[in-house]
């Protein structure tokens, strides 16, 4: 059994972690009261911990137990200031690591964070380093959420610097989720967030369940690490669930790779470096030949494809994990961030000049009472 640590850092990370806990109660079908009469049902031994400097963000969580919420005392958040966030982490490192240590030893840790916020984007790189230092053999995967582009220059700036730091740490890889890309799923922002959080939660739990299952065709944590080490060590997840109308496993695999079912905009055919396809479903739906053919087809464009087949009652569900050899969208983000930073800088200079000009009016004058 895998020992899994899931850390939700910052407001975004906390919300996704809460969605994971909710998913453990039965997913979207679970009522708000499910936590009162059900036990969360994780596929493996999963320990969750929501970390935040803003206590109000922690209070918003609905499906995460109080003991799994760690408030890092720093007034009320770090105000999207990564420098303040880093200082807060360093000041409270022992508390944070002690809280994690209490939860035992782990095979894999998922650090779920937004790249744009204050706490998550500043804590996560430092936290990953601490995890790697404290747990020698742990596999650390970062689930990094990219911001809406219109959220503001600071968030873009934070995303740019945070991504760079996350790339520099020793984590096994980053799985990207792009809020901008996924907001098309829902009309308003609030329900888009919920949907995105739910999608990420569902896919992560599917992944954990698959890695910890008896498979017809075996994939394991080692294979997952190999996939995540491919390309830029940046990847994303695709998911598709077939239904009664179309229970074809072939279609399910193809659909899982379509941009509409990915967390981050990518062209698998062009951008994939390594991939892992995990298929779950009833035996009658799992045509191994078809699955193999699809794998072979994917292998022709992606360097290597790991195949996992889990026999479980139901229509086929497919989770595709792949790392990218190129990430053009990231470059666009960085360009936009740079522009925003430049604009911010110019605005600041202009404002300073205007202020100085204003001050010039009272230069050489004394206050008279």
């Amino acid at each position, binding site marked *: 059994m895998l020992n899994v640590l899931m850390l939700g850092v910052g407001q975004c990370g906390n919300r996704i972690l809460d969605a994971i806990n909710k998913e453990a109660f039965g997913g979207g079908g679970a009522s708000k009261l499910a936590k*009162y009469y059900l036990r969360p049902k994780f596929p493996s031994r999963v320990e969750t911990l929501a970390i935040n400097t803003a206590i109000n963000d922690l209070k918003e969580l609905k499906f995460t137990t*109080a003991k799994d919420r760690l408030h890092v005392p720093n007034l009320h958040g770090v105000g999207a200031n990564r420098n303040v966030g880093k200082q807060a982490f360093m000041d409270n490192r022992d508390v944070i690591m002690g809280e994690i240590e209490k939860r035992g030893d782990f095979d894999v840790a998922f650090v779920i964070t937004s790249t744009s916020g204050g706490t998550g984007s500043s804590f996560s790189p430092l936290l990953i380093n601490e995890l790697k230092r404290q747990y020698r053999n742990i596999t650390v995967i970062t689930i990094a959420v990219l911001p809406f582009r219109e959220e503001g220059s600071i968030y873009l700036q934070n995303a740019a610097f945070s991504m760079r730091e996350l790339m520099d740490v020793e984590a096994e890889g980053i799985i990207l989720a792009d809020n901008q890309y996924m907001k098309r799923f829902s009309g308003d922002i609030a329900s888009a967030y919920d949907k995105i959080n739910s999608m990420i939660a569902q896919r992560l739990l599917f992944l954990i369940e698959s890695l910890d299952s008896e498979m017809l065709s075996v994939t394991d944590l080692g294979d997952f690490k190999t996939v995540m080490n491919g390309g830029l060590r940046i990847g994303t997840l695709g998911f598709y669930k077939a239904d009664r109308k179309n229970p074809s496993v072939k279609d399910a695999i193809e659909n899982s790779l379509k941009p509409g079912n990915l967390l981050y905009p990518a062209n698998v055919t062009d951008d994939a470096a390594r991939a892992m396809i995990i298929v779950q479903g009833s035996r009658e739906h799992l045509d191994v030949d078809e699955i193999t053919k699809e794998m072979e087809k994917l292998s022709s464009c992606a360097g290597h494809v790991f195949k996992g087949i889990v026999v479980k009652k139901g229509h086929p569900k497919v989770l595709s994990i792949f790392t990218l050899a190129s990430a053009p969208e990231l470059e666009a983000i960085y360009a936009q961030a740079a522009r925003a930073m430049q604009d911010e800088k110019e605005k600041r200079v202009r404002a300073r000049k205007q202020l100085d000009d204003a001050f010039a009016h009272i230069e050489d004058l004394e206050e008279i009472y």
Partner: protein
Amino acid sequence: MRQLIYLAVALLLIVTIAYAKDDEDQVTYSDFTLNIGDRIDIGDYRAELIEIQSVKDGIAVMRISKVNGALDEQRAFLQNSANNFQGGSDSGGITITVTDIFDDQSAKVRVEYKESLGTAKKRTSERPAAMLNVPILSVQKSFDKNHISVGDEVKVTITVKNIGTGRAQDIKAEDLPPLPEFSYVVGYPPKIKDALDPGESDSAVYVMNAVKEGSIRVPAIQVSYTDSKKNVKSNNSEPFNILINPKSKANLILTLRPSGPITVDGKGMLNVSLSNQGEASATKVKVEGDIKPSDGLVATGLDKSFFEILPGMKENYSIELSGKKPGNYTVTLRSSFFGGDGAMIQEGRTEVVVLDREYKYLYLLLIIPVIIIVAWMYKRYREYKY
């Protein structure tokens, strides 16, 4: 004339002297109480009481003798009849009269004699008193119970014992008159042996029934008998008072005390108490009962019988009840008995309630899960409350 006076005086003196001489030897008498063997000495005369021949007829035998042997005569003396010896007291002899006979052993004797014979003296016999054959019967009459009520049987015991020294004969017991407050059942009049030797006793028992209440004086029984000398004697018992109460009856109180309401298929007890608060025993007591309505309540040991319940005593027993159907039931017990005035019946009843089956604590089946759920939810709430 003077001479005539002297002559008259002289004659008067002569007459006076002559009379004075005559007065010096006058007849006198003495009374003595003599026991048999005692004697009276007067001059040369001796008078000895030999025996009392008949107290009833007043005849005593005395022996009269003279020292010089001129007189020695044994004669039966009739009471109060003077007997002269040697001319009697007027003639220088003695006159003896038995004035009273006290009993078989003693009598009062008067002796008349001339004073010239000296003074009469009593000489007590030095012979031991001879053992006499005198029967004495003691008589007792007794009832076998002190408290008598109308209708009670009473045993009367007559006991006659010869506590004397002689044989009593011709014994007749007379227990009259028959009392009107009693009817005489058997044994009346009492019969006692005709004769009883000394120390011997006899008794007679008769049975009578008290028929009338009131305070009565029970008369003595008189026993008459004769001794060996055919002396008729009698004795009687002491009369005594006795109270005959009104006729006593048994009063059997029947008390029923159920142990409480019974549930369907539950069991209970009905405690029955038969208390005789009357004056007479209740005999042949038979208790029978019934339950109305007849179905729905089953009683075990409803019927019971007792040979006798004494006055002031109590008999208890329990009836086991078993509830079959909810409802109110009337348990009626009837006790028939003989209680001094023929057959009697007493009745007692009580209500017994059979309740619907009580599902005790059933509400806990609802409350406990609710409490558990609430506690569980509160615990979870606390787990998730931040």
